[in-house]
Structures are given as structure tokens and as C-alpha cells.
């Protein structure tokens, strides 16, 4: 399994176990973690699963792909250097991921 630690804009922390192969978005939506919407279900269509990747997780996930990079220009809260769409981050077995969610997604 993998672990994802979601920190909301208000500082509240939710830790969820995810299956390897899931995206960072999926366990959040299935478990109702606030701060991630994922309206399109992970098909890179809606830009409502925007997250900021923590420094210690950066090396694990790398940067966005081309389409994702384009979509990050249109997120509800402006992108930063560590922005990713969480549906595009695939969980690897045995790893721990730390992300912060923005104040809004819509």
C-alpha cells in the first residue's frame, strides 16, 4: 500500500491509505477528503484536483506533463512552482506522499 497525507488550506490533516496504481486524487475523492473535487474522475479534463506537492515528495512525483501543464494555467487558485493535478500522480507501492490542497477548486 501507499500513504497519502493531505493537508487542507486550513491546516487540517487527513491521512489515507491508497492502492499502488491509484492516483493521489482517487483515494481523496472516494473517502471524501475535503479540498479535492476531481469532477472528471481523473481524465485530465477539469483541473479540480489541484494540489501543492510538499518538498519531501517532489522528487518522488516530478513535474507535470504537457497537457497537465496547460491545465494548471487555468486552476481556480493560481499555480505555484510545486503545483500538480493530483489525478496525474500515480502512487508507487510503499511510498508516502505529502500534498497541500488549495483554498478552492471551482
Amino acid at each position, binding site marked *: 500500500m501507499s500513504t497519502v497525507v493531505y493537508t487542507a488550506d486550513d491546516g487540517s490533516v487527513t491521512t489515507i491509505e491508497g*492502492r499502488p496504481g*491509484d492516483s493521489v486524487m*482517487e483515494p481523496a*475523492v*472516494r*473517502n*471524501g477528503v475535503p479540498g479535492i473535487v476531481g*469532477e*472528471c*474522475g481523473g*481524465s*485530465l*479534463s*477539469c*483541473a479540480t484536483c489541484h494540489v501543492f506537492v510538499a518538498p519531501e515528495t517532489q522528487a518522488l512525483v516530478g513535474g507535470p506533463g504537457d*497537457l497537465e501543464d*496547460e*491545465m494548471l*494555467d*487555468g*486552476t481556480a487558485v493560481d499555480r505555484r512552482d510545486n503545483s500538480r493535478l493530483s489525478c496525474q500522480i500515480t502512487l508507487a507501492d510503499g511510498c508516502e506522499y505529502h500534498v497541500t490542497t488549495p483554498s478552492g477548486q*471551482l
Partner: protein
Amino acid sequence: METTLIVGACQAGVQLAATLRDLGDTDPIVMIGEEAHRPYQRPPLSKGWLKGELEPDDVVLRTRQWFADREIALIAGDRVVTIHRESNGTGIAQTLGGRQIAFTRLALTTGAAVRRLALPGTDYRGVHYLRDADDAIALGPALAEPGAERVVVIGGGFIGLEAASAARQLGKHVTIVEGTGRLIGRVVAEPTSDFYLAAHRRRGTEVLLGARLARILGEDASAAGRRGSVTGVELEDGRVIPADLVVIGIGVLPRVELAVQLGLEVAGGIVVDEACRTSDGRTVAAGDCAIMPNPYPAGVGGMVRIESVNNALEQAKVAAATLLGRDAAYVSVPWFWSDQADLKLQIAGLSTGYDDVVVRGDPDAEKFAVLYYRDGRLIAADCVNQPAEFLAIKQALSKGKTIPSLAAADTGVPLKQSVVDAPVALAS
């Protein structure tokens, strides 16, 4: 204490329950769905699922724990057949499985049922529809069979095109049979239809337009009574297209039976107002089953029934607030997506009532947008492989802004920079 009964356990129903809890409702919620599965996402069924890329847990909307934590009682695999409602609003729903569910608040998120083809031959083995999880569970392995070389898709709408794309990507010989003169004609303008025709043909799919179907052909049943397998389809002009597998995607019909039984107004769907209230003033309806006044404030009247995830979610949020007696109205900009092969279509707004279109970029490059205007004001856009432009347009529409058509045609300037205030408000 109130008890909310939500009839229909899919995207809209789950969101409605979630929003009730988010808004602080702690009273009992019962959600019932006729499918035996836990509530799931439909969009992947015609995309990744058919290509064997997904498993059931990938498409589930919420975990069991989510329902338990929120004390939302989920009944899967049973169907409400009758609802009796007293004049004071309380009522009892009777299910096929013999359950009696008492309620004080009622939400209909009954969705839509696949439209059946009214022609001979639909019962041959190898003839599939694609709407529910069970359809996808049957179609996935059927497509993976090596013997299923030739696939005929009946219907050139989104489901048909997505199924055709998946089949083609699996290496099948695919023919799309569309009865009208163009693809996705109900939703998009000609430039977008023309693009998808060319794009599917470029990828090796045959597309027949204006092709009127006469019947589906198959083998006789065996002596043992086993149904015969499909062998092809026959058009009205006598042409026969051989097929090992036929997928029918000719749209859906809103599920209005219970609304009719309750005496609610029904006209192309369960009629609701902008607060998702039905004609009795207390029952709410949301999602594919509901038809509402055009929500997009661009001066276009009429009623619209929108089949999309976004609409199911937005209406459900509004319906939940309405059930709790709060003021709520549908204000968001509808949007939709379709993934076919490597083509990402994103549609923002509703093009109903457009009087002009602007094509931005080169469709042959498979990266372009079609912007729809009414009285000089932007109302919608189809964006192909242009996610940044899509988001810019969606944001502009949601703020009541527009993009002048001259600027829209200029690909040298990102659309985001061409957004301006709408010059005049349109009369409603």
C-alpha cells in the same frame, strides 16, 4: 425528524446525500439504486474500461466507509416501484424486493435508461448496449475476444464514438453507422462534426453517414435453442456490413415513471425549476432525469436536459439545499468532456440558440476550438486538445464575460488575454 429518500444511486444521488451532510443535515438519509453495484462513475465505462485498463474499484464513487461515516443508508439492487405520498408530504416507497421505506423528503435522481433499437435482430448474441456497469462488464470481454474482429457501432453520438475509439485502439475493424448527415449532430456545430468524421477516418475507422438501418442479421438459433450470433447489419438500401460484434449507442431516455406516478409535470424529463424543485413544490429532481430552464444566463429561453457528470453534481447540490429549505439556484456554467483516442474534447457552456461560430486554429492539426456566439456574445465552445483555452473560456463564461469574435480567431493571442466584459446584457 425528517427522513430523506433518494431514489437513484449514481453521480447525482451520491452528491445529493453528500451535500445534505455538508450542509449539516443529521437526519436519516436512505439512498436506493436498482443496480447491484455500489455507486460508480459512468464516463470511464465507454473509455478506459473497454480497453481493459480499469477494474471495478477504479470506478467506485465512494468507499463503504464513506457511507458508514456519514450514516447514509445505501440499498443497492432493489427498485422503487410505487410511491404513495400524503398531502402533508410524508410518504412510503414500496420496492420490488418488498421493502417499505417511509420518508418525509423525496429526491428523484432516477437517471436515464438506454434507448433500445426498435428493429429486428437486437437479441442475437454479440449485440450490446452501453449504459450501465453490467453493459460494460459484458462488452469489455466481448471486445477482447480474438474472434471479434469486425465491430459495427450503431450511432455516431458520444457513446458510439467513444466505443468505436476503444475498439479501434484494440485493433478491431470498426464501422460507425449514423442515420443523420453528421456525427454528434445533436450537440455540436458542423465544424466539430466534420472534424470528428475526418479524425475517425484518419485512424482507420469507417464512418457511414445518412445510413438508415433496416435490421441486424444473425445465425439461426441452434437446435438446443441457443441464441444465434450476430453476423452483420443490413441498411435500408440493401447494403450489408459484416460484424462479429454490434454496439448500439443511440441515446438515452429519462426515467420518469415514478414522477408520472406522483403526478409531477413531465415533458422530456422531470420538469424542475432553477432550484431543482418539481411541480409539486416539495419533491426535488436532479441529473439526467431532470429538465430545467436553460441555466446559462445568455438570454436563451427554453428548457434543457443535460446528460453530464457536471450537471448531475451541480443540480444535486442545488436540490440538497432546496430540500433543507435554503435558497439555492443553479448558476454554474455547464461543461462536458469526451475522450476519443488521443483527442480530448472539452465543451464549456450550452450552444443552444447560437447564431454564429468562430473556428480558432486548424482542425487538421487536431488542436482547435469552435466558439459559439449569440447576438455577438460568447455562449459556448468546443475545445479539442486545447485545455488551457477551454479553462479560459469556462472561466470567462462563469464571470459573465465574453471574447470578441475577431480576437477569438487570432491564434497568436492566448484566449485568456482576450476576455472582456460583455457589452450589453441580453434580453431574456
